[in-house]
């Protein structure tokens, strides 16, 4: 009974979710080109990061330009545990999540008091600090980085597969979880409070919202999600160093995929990531001989989206389009049977 009710509440989301997942699960089964799979994997990973950022940046409206920090933490925890104890990512990932939540809590307390640009810049500065520290931290390989490439370990244990599909499905799984998490947040009290804070902090506080607390909580959750993305990416690259993980461009890309898709929406980051990453990867392979052209195109694309679709690509997709599509399909099926 209760289930039914909640199904009705979220009918649109659930159908969309089902369809999208079905597509993302079935289609790759017929993709035999490793490079295409590689792109897909990057898409899923970056959507996870986008989703993570979306929670603090999209819902709670605190524009962080320093989420590469949690990406790096996730990645490093994964890498180091693998290198030291050959620990499986299935577990080490959660250590990373916990660690980044703790760190988010600690730094969130002072930094979240800052308003928009100040917050953005101080998070950037924070990433810069982390970069310098990691570059010189002997224990975690300093600038030499960490490569963890184990042929010996069982593949499902180490996530180091001979071909791409298993890894793709793993990261897709996590992406699905993150989507559900976002939806849950969106339709929860917490979600409403975040949006209230984003909309108008003062009146939010005067209507009984402990802004500081909720902002911090949002920051922690988003840190956790991003670090999951980081862990996945590290396992995929099998080599990480501070120069890979912590340049400004990474923090910006995390924001970018989210904004291109549409901030403060469940599907925005996913859409954004899949589009931007695919375009980026293929543009690079097409225009590689004119060095830089691909990035020029990418940049122009971003400018156009920002100017003409300020609400992101998601605003192109009409409400419950997919439902209607599915309905039509159903009709067709009935007709045929």
């Amino acid at each position, binding site marked *: 009974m209760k289930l039914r009710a909640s199904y009705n509440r979220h009918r649109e989301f659930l159908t969309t979710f089902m369809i999208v997942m079905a597509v993302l699960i079935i289609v790759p089964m017929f993709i035999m080109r490793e490079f295409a799979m590689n792109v897909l994997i990057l898409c899923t990973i970056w959507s996870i990061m986008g989703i993570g950022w979306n929670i603090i940046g999209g819902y709670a409206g605190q524009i962080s330009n320093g989420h590469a920090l949690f990406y790096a933490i996730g990645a490093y925890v994964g890498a180091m545990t693998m290198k030291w104890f050959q620990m499986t990512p299935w577990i080490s990932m959660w250590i990373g999540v916990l660690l980044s939540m703790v760190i988010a809590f600690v730094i969130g307390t002072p930094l979240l008091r800052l308003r928009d640009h100040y917050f953005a810049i101080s998070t950037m500065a924070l990433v810069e600090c982390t970069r310098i520290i990691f570059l010189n931290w002997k224990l975690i390989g300093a600038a030499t980085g960490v490569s963890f490439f184990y042929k010996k370990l069982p593949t499902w244990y180490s996530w180091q597969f001979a071909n791409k599909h298993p890894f793709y499905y793993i990261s897709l799984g996590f992406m699905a979880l993150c989507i559900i998490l976002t939806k849950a947040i969106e339709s*929860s009290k917490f979600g*409403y409070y975040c949006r*209230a804070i984003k*909309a*108008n902090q003062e009146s939010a506080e*005067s209507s009984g*919202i402990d802004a500081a607390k909720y902002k911090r909580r949002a920051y922690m959750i988003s840190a956790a999600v991003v670090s999951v993305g980081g862990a996945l990416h590290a396992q995929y690259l099998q080599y990480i160093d501070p120069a890979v993980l912590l340049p400004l461009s990474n923090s910006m890309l995390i924001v970018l995929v989210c904004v291109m898709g549409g901030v403060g929406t469940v599907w925005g980051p996913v859409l954004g990531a899949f589009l931007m990453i695919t375009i980026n990867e293929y543009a690079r392979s097409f225009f590689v001989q004119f060095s830089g052209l691909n990035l020029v195109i990418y940049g122009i694309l971003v400018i156009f989206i920002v100017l003409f679709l300020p609400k992101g690509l998601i605003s192109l997709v009409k409400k419950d389009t997919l439902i209607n599509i599915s309905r039509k399909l159903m009709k067709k099926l009935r007709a045929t049977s």
Partner: protein
Amino acid sequence: MGALLEVRNATKYFGGLKANEDISFEAEAGSIVGIVGPNGAGKTTLFNSISRTHPLTSGQIIFNGEDVTKRKPFEVCKLGMGRTYQIPQAMEDMTTLENIMVGALCHRSSVKAAEERAKEISEFCDLSEFNNATASSLNVMQKKRLEIARALAGDPKLLLLDETMAGLNGIERTNAINLIRKINANGITILMIEHVMKVVMSVSEKVVVIVSGRKLMEGNPNEVTSNPEVINAYLGGGHNAGCQ
């Protein structure tokens, strides 16, 4: 019934500037208290001190028998003090209903229950037709009602209304007055700032007059209007004691 709100020698300085000085008054539970005074008399400052938007320099705020002088805004709200702003502070990019729900969630953890409650409230403040419109699309009057609704949704014991009537025309004003009466009828104490005297006189049992940061006097409407100082203060303040 005892005093729901008690303000003891509330004093607020901004740097050297004295915004409020040594203001004391009480608001009986279930009553409607009006605060009047010319612009810049420090009415809103007093409000902000009561709702803890900014700290007092000295003095005390006793709400419902509890000293809330050191509490944070969201805490006093939880204790049952709702407020509106002179310039409406709607959550622009959320829908009307969602705005009210945010208020309702203050004492409810279930979104569903909050939604039910919000629907009732928006019905009560006849906003229901705008339920799914974004707050930014409402006009000033509607926004002000929305603010009242949001405050009400938090089931307050005391409601602080800051210049709810300003800029409303005759009919709107009477509607608003009726609304206030309706709210008060549900046993909610109301403390309202107005400088449209007539409104205050018509609804409130007690009126506190503040002039240049000090309490000039308090009493029932008739006493106030008949008090020469008040009239003088208003005229001195370049304002018309009668009603615009």
